[in-house]
């Protein structure tokens, strides 16, 4: 085996008295999609915030290419090639596509004695990069981000990460708010990134989405890693059970079962 691009060993994280992550170890490889599946509050976002320099782990070792690293800031993490599209936010509603794409890394040019933001180039690159991800409806980098659809906004954020040469791309629930078609598009973009040799960490609640793109899966439950397996090692049902914490799902099934026998085979009405 080659050295994993990113290796976590025994990561712990507490916010004051609350232990959010306990002894998490993970390998992330180039050209692979690692899916983090887990219930609300399992600690997925916290884990990737450690990877992206937003939080610092309370203890544990993080290695890139076999060398230990520690990130002091999001800037630090992105300098190491880790690009993150966070669960909430990440795009600027009232900024143009071109401006938003280059926030913090603006292209500049000289204009007489002044150094100015090269808006034309920013717009061109942003539009081109989005088109390369198949978002062909966008042709004007001056359009405001707030006028884009959810999927287009995700694509903008991903295009930005790809453009700046990320070697690790972290996506926190990029398909959560999307319709079927837009979600499919984002999944396709994830596969495109994988093909470029980027290591993708993909967070989702949706087992179908995970199985579509994932090579490698990890399931954190209440801060501890409950399972770690590769594609094909577990069925969809098994994964769903795992995420819900096993027993609870079985309980729920039993409940539905008994309901159906009592009501002559009618399933309970949903939302009634």
């Amino acid at each position, binding site marked *: 085996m080659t050295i994993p691009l990113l290796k976590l060993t025994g990561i712990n994280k507490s916010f004051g008295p609350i232990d959010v992550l306990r002894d998490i170890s993970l390998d992330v490889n180039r050209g692979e999609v690692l899916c983090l599946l887990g219930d609300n509050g399992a600690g997925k976002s916290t884990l990737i915030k450690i990877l992206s320099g937003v939080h610092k782990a309370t203890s544990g070792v993080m290695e890139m290419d076999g060398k230990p690293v520690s990130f002091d800031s999001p800037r630090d993490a992105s300098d190491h090639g880790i690009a993150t599209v966070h669960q909430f936010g990440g795009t600027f509603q009232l900024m143009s596509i071109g401006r938003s794409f280059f926030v913090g890394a603006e292209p500049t040019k000289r204009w007489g004695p002044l150094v100015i*933001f090269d808006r034309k180039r920013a717009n061109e690159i942003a539009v081109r990069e989005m088109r390369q991800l198949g978002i062909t409806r966008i042709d004007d980098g001056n359009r405001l981000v707030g006028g884009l659809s959810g999927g287009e906004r995700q694509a903008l954020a991903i295009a930005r990460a790809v453009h700046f040469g990320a070697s690790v791309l972290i996506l926190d629930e990029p398909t959560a708010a999307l319709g079927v078609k837009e979600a499919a598009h984002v999944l396709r973009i994830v596969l495109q990134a994988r093909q470029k040799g980027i290591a993708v960490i993909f967070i989702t609640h949706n087992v179908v989405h995970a199985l579509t793109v994932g090579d490698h899966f990890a399931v954190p439950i209440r801060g501890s890693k409950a399972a770690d397996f590769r594609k094909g090692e577990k069925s969809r049902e098994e994964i769903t059970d795992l995420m819900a914490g096993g027993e609870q799902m079985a309980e729920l099934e039993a409940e539905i079962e008994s309901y159906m026998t009592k009501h002559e085979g009618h399933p309970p009405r949903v939302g009634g």
Partner: protein
Amino acid sequence: MKSETAMQPSEAAIAPLASRSQWPSFGSLVRRPEMGSVIGLIAVFVFFSIFGGEDFLSVGGAASWLNVAAELGIIALPVGLLMIAGQLDLSVGSMVPASSMTVAIISGHFHAPIIVGVLASLGLGLVVGFVNGLLVIRTRVPSFVVTLATLFALAGLTLGLSIILTGSTSVALKSGPIAKLLLGDYIGGKFEVTLFWWIAIVAIVGYILNLSRYGNWILAVGGDSVSARNAGIPTDRLTIALYMGSGLCAAFVGLSQAILYNSAQVAAGQSFIFNSIIAVVVGGVLLTGGYGSVVGIVLGTVTFSVVNQGIFYTGFNANWASLIIGILLLLAVVMNNTFRNMALTYAARTKTRTRS
């Protein structure tokens, strides 16, 4: 843009491009964030041209609102930048008299060279701005509260120190011809020199917001400060720098007033607190940050000043000016919201139209 389209020759992509190039002016016009203030200014100007008559339109009439606009504008511009970055600065209302008193006490009461007083005033502005910025980022208390506190603290400090040092709340200042010419005089007997400083500051702030990369940072911080920090923007340093900018500009207005009027009063300048906010908001800046333009701030400033001074050229009681400004503020904000929403949806709507 052309080569972009050639790369991916899809029908849907080309159609809106073609339609946009036929109507570039309309599309970009509607998308301007300051459309509301343009309409507001035209309305106000027409109104006072009718009721104010020739006097309002004369050189003297123009000078009267331009002078007000210059002083207000010098403060409104950095306050506007702060608002775009998601912050308020109320302390300018105390910074102006604090700076007036500083220069008057140092160079008037203690007879130090005027340059010493001027530099001390500007330095005080930078220090107050720094303190504001530091308090805002460290305490995470909303800037409204922080700068309300510094507004009062600075007012108290100015009053207390003036009494201790001079025994008075108003101090005379005699400055030499050069200081007068540069900082506080009337050109042609009518136009304050601050007009030229205002123009210079418009250019500087315009460069910062529209042309430099820092403009992008300011928009991003105001739009979503967490995301901006995650994108690697030094948000704390940016916030402090912006507060120092507004402190500096408020100090400038204060010292130029002292030099112009040959005296300084402890209680002058409170009107700048709300007037600067009105000018900025009428100019299309979003109160919650993330959106705004320098052109808009200038238009908002001029609109305010025209109402403020134009009223004296009509036969109406000057008290009506506040009523007009109140109505204007509401109308301008409603219009600005409408135009902002149009900017968000404009492109999408053209597309549907071209497709069907």
